[in-house]
């Protein structure tokens, strides 16, 4: 890696930190500006109780002071503070619990999307305009254009209610199966189409014709030359795909009641659980920033012709 690339990475990391700081600041002040608080409920608590609760969690201090204290806790101790709604639990623990499930869901979905996408895409390219290709193309068009909440509900009705093969609840045994499938279908279809078109392009290149002319075996041409080069666009899609899976899981976790970070995020907002809103926002923002960073660096790694600036 040359100094130019290294400089670029350092610059991008610094920019990522600034981005996250902006996210923290904006979220913090917007969140406090929204009407309603963590201790408002259908049944009002007395003024004394409210005052005691606010004092306990430091919400009685000026907003500026709260902000500085929060920044200090997060940056120096990586402490997101106590949850205001789930009393006795702290946000770090809640996020960790949610991340375990969400990460499993996301990583498996990404792997499935990659493996199935590349295989189906190559297959379609090699069988161009044959029946298999047509079927694969129709299916992927459907998966790409169908939003995940429709796909999720569809799978739920077929496999959980009618056929009773898989549970409807994400927390049950084998409960992650349907959410994983729902989450992976879109990126899988996208990768299939990407691989197919890129493979077709590569197969038409001069060097492939040269290889054929030299008598290189078909398998070697496909795996040794064509596939490797046709994967470049797929790899560059990897960053945006992971970011898409992170945000897509917000919907999927809701449909299948998966106890992931997405559900914690949504519930924290409706409940005005300030520390949990901040914690989940920071983690999700950091994830997306990092995914994009990795994606950009991957560009350079797989294609040395690209210069990073």
């Amino acid at each position: 890696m040359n100094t130019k690339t290294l400089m670029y990475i350092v610059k991008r990391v610094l920019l990522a930190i600034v981005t996250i700081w902006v996210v923290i600041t904006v979220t913090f002040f917007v969140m406090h500006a929204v009407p309603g608080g963590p201790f408002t409920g259908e049944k009002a608590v007395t003024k004394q109780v409210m005052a005691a609760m606010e004092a306990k969690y430091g919400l009685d201090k000026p907003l500026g002071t709260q902000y500085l204290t929060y920044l200090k806790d997060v940056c120096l101790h990586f402490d997101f503070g106590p949850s205001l709604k789930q009393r006795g639990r702290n946000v770090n623990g809640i996020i960790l619990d949610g991340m375990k499930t969400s990460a499993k869901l996301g990583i498996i979905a990404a792997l499935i999307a990659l493996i199935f996408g590349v295989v189906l895409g190559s297959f379609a390219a090699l069988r161009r305009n044959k029946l298999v290709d047509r079927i694969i193309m129709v299916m992927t068009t459907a998966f790409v254009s169908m939003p995940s909440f429709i796909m999720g509900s569809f799978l739920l009705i077929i496999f959980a209610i009618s056929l009773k093969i898989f549970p409807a609840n994400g927390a049950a045994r084998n409960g992650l199966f349907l959410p994983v499938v729902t989450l992976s279908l879109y990126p899988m279809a996208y990768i299939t189409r990407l691989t197919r078109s890129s493979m077709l392009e590569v197969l038409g290149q001069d060097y492939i014709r040269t290889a054929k002319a030299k008598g290189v075996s078909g398998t070697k041409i496909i795996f040794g030359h064509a596939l490797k080069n046709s994967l470049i666009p797929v790899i560059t899609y990897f960053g945006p795909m992971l970011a898409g899976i992170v945000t897509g899981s917000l919907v999927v976790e809701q449909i299948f009641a998966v106890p992931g970070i997405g559900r914690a995020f949504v519930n924290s907002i409706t409940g005005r659980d300030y520390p949990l809103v901040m914690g989940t926002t920071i983690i999700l923002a950091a994830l997306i920033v990092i995914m994009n960073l990795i994606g950009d660096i991957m560009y350079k790694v797989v294609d040395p012709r690209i210069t990073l600036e």
Partner: protein
Amino acid sequence: MKKKLFSVLLAMTMVLSLVACGAKKGPAEDGINVCLASEPATLDPALQSAVDCGIVINHLFAGLATWEEGANGESVLAPDCITEFTEGVENPDGTVTYTYTLRDGLTWSDGKAVTAGDFVFAWNRAASPATAADYGYMFDVIDGYDAMWADDAKGDETLNVQAPDDKTLVVTLKNQVPYWNELMAFPTYKPVREDVVSNEAWATEPKTMICNGAYTIESWEHNSYLTLRKRDDFVDAAKVTMPAINFYLSDDVNNDLANFKNGDWQFIDDVPTNEIPALKKDYPDEFVITGNVGTYYLCWNVNEDLLPNSDLEGTEKALAEAEIRNAINLLVDRNYIVEDVSQGGQVPASSFVAMGLTDADGTEFYKNAGNNDYTGYFDVSKEAYEKTWEEAKEILKKYYTFDEASGKFTDMPSLVYLYNTNEGHKAIAEAIQSNFAQMGINMSLENQEWATFLETRKNGDFSVARNGWLGDYNDPISFLDMWTTVSGNNDVQLGKGDNETVKAYSIDLTDLGYDTKVENGTWAETYDVVISDIKTCTDPKTRYALMHKAEDLLMSTGTICPIYYYTDLYMIDDSVDGFFTTPLGFKYFMYCTINK
């Protein structure tokens, strides 16, 4: 090529098997699967304030009293940790002292004995300002509570509750409290142990959660499920038939219903509103509608100007506006709402205090409200709707211009109906909107997200808003004391803002032996006085009469427009026996059996 294909296939299988190996230990296999709501806000008895938390706590902790199923399926109170309910002894100063004896063999889940001192500690903890519990006020009937919360309190004040020895508990109440036994069965009154709760996170993990009830926590995957395991050393273990309970923690009603339909779960506590007609048809025995102590209502902001072009002022204007509100309230077609909109077996309401609360003589309080030959403050029957509609029209004609040709009023002020974002509330709002429109009242609808809505309504930044109230215990006071001037639930702003100085309320308590007789006084001079009289009244008959008077006064303001009395909807699999629920919505699974 084949080798490569094989390795790709192998990789796929590995990925898929990753998905299959799900949770580690998983919920109990021998238990009932139920779903009440999402992750409970807390399982600390002192801090809980939601019914779903209360239900889990009732299975984990045993208080002085509990609910049991009576011979006819009704809920009856029974002594739990005490040998019997005793009669209170009235002291010369009007306070009442109860002495209870704890049963033998009561233990905590770590084997230590339950003592009377544990109750003394738990109650003081739950009531204290330092704990700042939502339901701390549940202890306000006990002598000493007021001193704890006084402005000059030092922080070392305690409730008048003593434990002379490990088996004896002596409680002194401010005065006779008709619902005292019921309070003792409430989750907030459950005992906790001082050394256990000294760890602030004690109620969040199975190993630190030491309880004294029928069950203990076996496993708790936060936001997924909570498994309770029966305690074999529990004093009443022989009565407990369900070995384990898996509480699935989910609040997506559509997903919950899917789990019920495919047979994974035996009980769900809520259903999607739009599915109700289908569920009634497809699951006639498993879809259950039962009574619930609560009222769904529309509330008016008392400070909303309904006569902007009138010369009326002060008392006269306030009385006229009350008359107008009461007339408009008559326009709502409640029977249509319950039968065609909400469809959950709700009962059209004509009073604020809900169905299901008893009166002094044991009859239903709501049936005696209003002193009319029909139930409540107006006739809510289907047949009477046309007549009440005409009555309302005649009243409104006194204040607004009626156009005979169109059959509508032409100069009524426009209203904005505020509700929290929810399809069910929206449908009801639209029904009311259409009722009003037929009379020429232009009412637009505005929805807000839940927490924002609560704040807006509390601050009185609305003209008309959706509202609802569920009682905490079977006594009408839990519906009436929320309308005092200082109450945080007084969303209609009676006695607040401009209404603070309005002298338009009258009350006469002389027939009940009180000196109070106010004509055209402020809200504080009338309503607040009756409520404080109710709280100190020791004669049950007089007390209930006072409560009727309070409701009469409240309803005369027209600020409350009752729509229906709530019902509790749930689904229970027909293989389950022994389940029961109380009118306050507390469900008991410990006596269940599953017959597959």
